[in-house]
């Protein structure tokens, strides 16, 4: 079935984005204790309440045990060996791109995100996070005119402390899980978005960020609040350089949608997956949760995941408001020695809530992928509706695809449908394409894209194109 030579070629293919920037980073020494946390808080001149929040979370984290999951295997992480703070040396924040270190700008060019071009053509505001500190923030004025707040968490702590304090940790409390507690204690920065009542955010918001310094855990914290009747679309895409040591990424994303509000959160993830022996890739342990707080609110998660050595994430929706809607669209590709255990949780609490889950997994080489989903219908959740479709496509005979859906129903008026299929690209399909002139690789690309089409349709346009390219590149050489 699989051509050994081709597969070998495939796994040896260079990680396209792998490189390192030489900027001096101002890192804290490795290790985690109260002092480090005070240091982090102090460097950012955080208000007292925020420091206390961190300390509380840290105390709680110390009581918790490292989680062990059955289907994801990794060597134990030594949390004392990680440096929790790294920032490029600078005195004050740059006021415009002209003030940004040209070396940094060249970095961004290499990453394929020329800020200038983006500024001119797409009009997308970019909050580029370089390691653990925000470096450039563009378009804030335009957004400010619309009333939209789009800044880093650090800035929000200074300029919008009441807003931040009201909502931070209200969707993912520090007690939620091990990595959420860790994040709450040591998060260094991230994005804060507040869209006021009745405002439709005028542009797609996005963040690019990467991990640079070695042994630096990346603990980003994102908080997006859409007030009554507002709309915001947020794009998250990240790349990371090649490293020898495993790099930990334990982010927390909290979304809050009030009455009639809608948040669209899209992710294209292409983190370093590790070399052919599975060494050195990113560990992506993320807690992402959306709270459909208001009636008729709507949160949708769309993701295309092709990287990381290990992925553990379950973007979830709590459908609290009546008539609220939660959606999850995902394409996950695992190749090489990647392991992914991802899925979603849809918790139906209000009345007439609806959730849709469409998950497409593609496994190649020795990739192992699990979909783990939970649909829970509470006793008072009248007329809940869920539709779930999980499909896996296996390429090559050494990979694995697994599906573990948990369906818990306590209300009879609920209507749930769940379907899952696992298959491979059929020889008939391949032959048909080839008999029409396509090469085998192109045929696979075509078929896989068709397999994922539903998901790509949900992505904002710029991302959709990038995602499709990413998919083809990810599967190059995976032909069996």
């Amino acid at each position, binding site marked *: 079935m699989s051509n050994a030579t081709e597969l070998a070629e495939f796994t040896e293919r260079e990680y396209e984005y792998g490189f390192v920037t030489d900027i001096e980073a101002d890192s804290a020494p490795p290790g985690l204790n109260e002092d480090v946390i005070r240091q982090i808080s102090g460097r950012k001149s955080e208000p007292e309440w925020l420091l206390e929040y961190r300390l509380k979370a840290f105390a709680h984290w110390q009581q918790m045990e490292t989680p062990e999951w059955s289907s994801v295997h990794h060597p134990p992480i030594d949390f004392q060996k990680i440096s929790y703070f790294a920032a490029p040396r600078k005195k004050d924040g740059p006021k415009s791109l002209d003030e940004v270190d040209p070396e940094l700008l060249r970095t961004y060019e290499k990453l394929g995100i020329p800020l200038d071009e983006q500024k001119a053509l797409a009009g997308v505001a970019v909050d580029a996070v370089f390691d653990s500190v925000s470096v450039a923030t563009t378009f804030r004025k335009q957004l400010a005119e619309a009333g939209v707040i789009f800044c880093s968490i650090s800035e929000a702590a200074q300029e919008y402390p009441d807003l931040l304090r009201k909502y931070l940790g209200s969707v993912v409390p520090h007690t939620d899980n091990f990595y959420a507690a860790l994040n709450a204690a040591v998060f260094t920065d991230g994005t804060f978005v507040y869209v006021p009542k009745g405002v439709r955010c005028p542009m797609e918001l996005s963040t690019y960020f990467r991990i640079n310094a070695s042994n630096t855990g990346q603990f980003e914290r994102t908080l997006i609040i859409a007030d009554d009747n507002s709309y915001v679309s947020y794009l998250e895409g990240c790349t990371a350089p090649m490293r020898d040591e495993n790099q930990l990424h334990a982010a927390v994303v909290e979304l809050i949608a009030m009455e009639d509000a809608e948040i669209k959160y899209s992710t294209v993830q292409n983190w370093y997956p590790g070399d052919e022996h599975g060494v050195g890739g990113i560990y992506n342990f993320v807690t992402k949760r959306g709270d459909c707080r208001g009636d008729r609110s709507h949160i949708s998660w769309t993701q295309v995941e092709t990287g990381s050595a290990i992925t553990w994430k379950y973007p979830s929706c709590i459908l609290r408001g009546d008539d609220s809607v939660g959606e999850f669209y995902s394409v996950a590709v695992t190749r090489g020695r990647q392991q992914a255990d991802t899925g979603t949780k849809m918790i139906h609490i209000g009345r007439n809530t609806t959730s849709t889950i469409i998950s497409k997994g593609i496994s190649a080489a020795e990739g192992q992928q699990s979909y783990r989903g939970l649909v829970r219908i509470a006793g008072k959740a009248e007329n809940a509706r869920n539709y779930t479709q999980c499909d896996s496509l*296996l390429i090559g005979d050494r990979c694995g*695809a697994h599906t573990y859906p948990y369906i818990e129903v306590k209300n009879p008026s609920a209507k749930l449908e769940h379907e899952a299929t*696992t298959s491979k690209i059929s020889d008939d399909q391949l032959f048909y394409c080839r008999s029409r002139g396509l090469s085998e690789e192109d045929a696979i690309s075509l078929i896989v894209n068709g397999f994922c089409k539903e998901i790509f349709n949900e992505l904002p346009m710029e991302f959709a194109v990038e995602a499709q390219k990413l998919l083809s590149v990810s599967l190059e050489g995976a032909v*069996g």
Partner: protein
Amino acid sequence: MNQSEGTLIRRLVCDRHPEETIRDENPWLSVLKKEAASWISDMPLPNRKMEAWRYTPIEFINKTAFSLDAEEAPFEALDLIDIEELLIPGSESSDRIVFVNGRYAPGLSGLKTGNGITLHTLAGDSKLPSGFKRQIGHADLSGRFFFTLNNALMSDGAVIHVNQQGGERRRLELLHITVGMPDPVIHNPRHLVVLERNTSLELVERYTSLGKSTYFNNAVIDIHLSEESDLLHTRLQEESELAQHLGHLTVKLEAHSNYRQVSLASGAAWSRTEAQIIFNGEHAHAELDGLILAGSKQLNDVHLEVLHEVPNCTSREHFKGLLSSNGKIVFDGRILVARDAQKTEAALNNENLMLSRSAEVDTKPQLEIFADDVKCSHGATVGELDPGMLFYLRSRGIPKAQAERMLCTAFANEVVSCISETPIRDHAKRMVLQHLASEGETG
């Protein structure tokens, strides 16, 4: 491990001397039981933190002081006339092996000789064929508490050997009857069914009781299907509504063998099935249809594993759950396809119909696929009676309650109609109607 957990049951195991109940003809069995007894003392009791017990409460094992049956079984006092009400009309003359309170009751059983079925019993006089020791004695390293408990406490069991090729398919009923005792008792029957190459059998396995009583039936049945053999297996769980029932089933299929199961569970306050279908040989096929009924104060749990270890096998499982009142159903069905099991076709489906507000269903169909040239799928649905269908019936004059009953019966019939033998199918229909009637459907 919490030492106070399972104290009652562990003490029961320690107090019991395994040798007492099995005669010396089979000393290896005593060894097996002692070994299992020693494991029990260290094994953690199933609890909610274990994935396999996540939704299934197990308090009764801590709260009830079960005892084992006395040596003199009550079946001595039973006559055929006493159990007549339990027999399925139309099947009275079938070959039948009867177990009363976990022990073979020769006086109530009847097996025609010379028809290719040989019966041994674990507590019986005759020596077991040596090959069977291996079948019964397989050490269980998976840490399954109740299975190990059965190993430690088993007092008797049927060893059914089908060894005559060709001819008509023989039918055999394996009938369990529990007679209530003043104190709660735990029964641990242990059965083995072996079909030799190119043989066939129809096995009707039933769990019934006389009168309402409290007991725990911890039953194990292992089935080995040799090459080209064929088993039609009907499982009917009709336990007392106060009882606990745990049915372990393992089916091993060799090349070109065929396993067809239709099951119906309507009794017991607490019922759990742990079934494993294991494909050992290529081109084998397994098909299971099951109906799970959970009404007032009932918990019914089906844990199913279908293990495709070799290529070219097919499996299809379809389980339907019907919930009323405060009934609860747990369904966990896992399809595992190993790396080399190419050309596997496996499908699993669980549909649940909830009739009441206080019912609960937790369903988790799973796929673990390590081979690529396969076709695997699963599905799960949960819903209530279709209002459009109800209205249609009512608009034709059928009263609401009757309309609901008709739709529930239709839902159940999809499984019941899979039973090909008319007397048994009629009996199953009656089981469903009785359950619905006693529930008043909407509860």
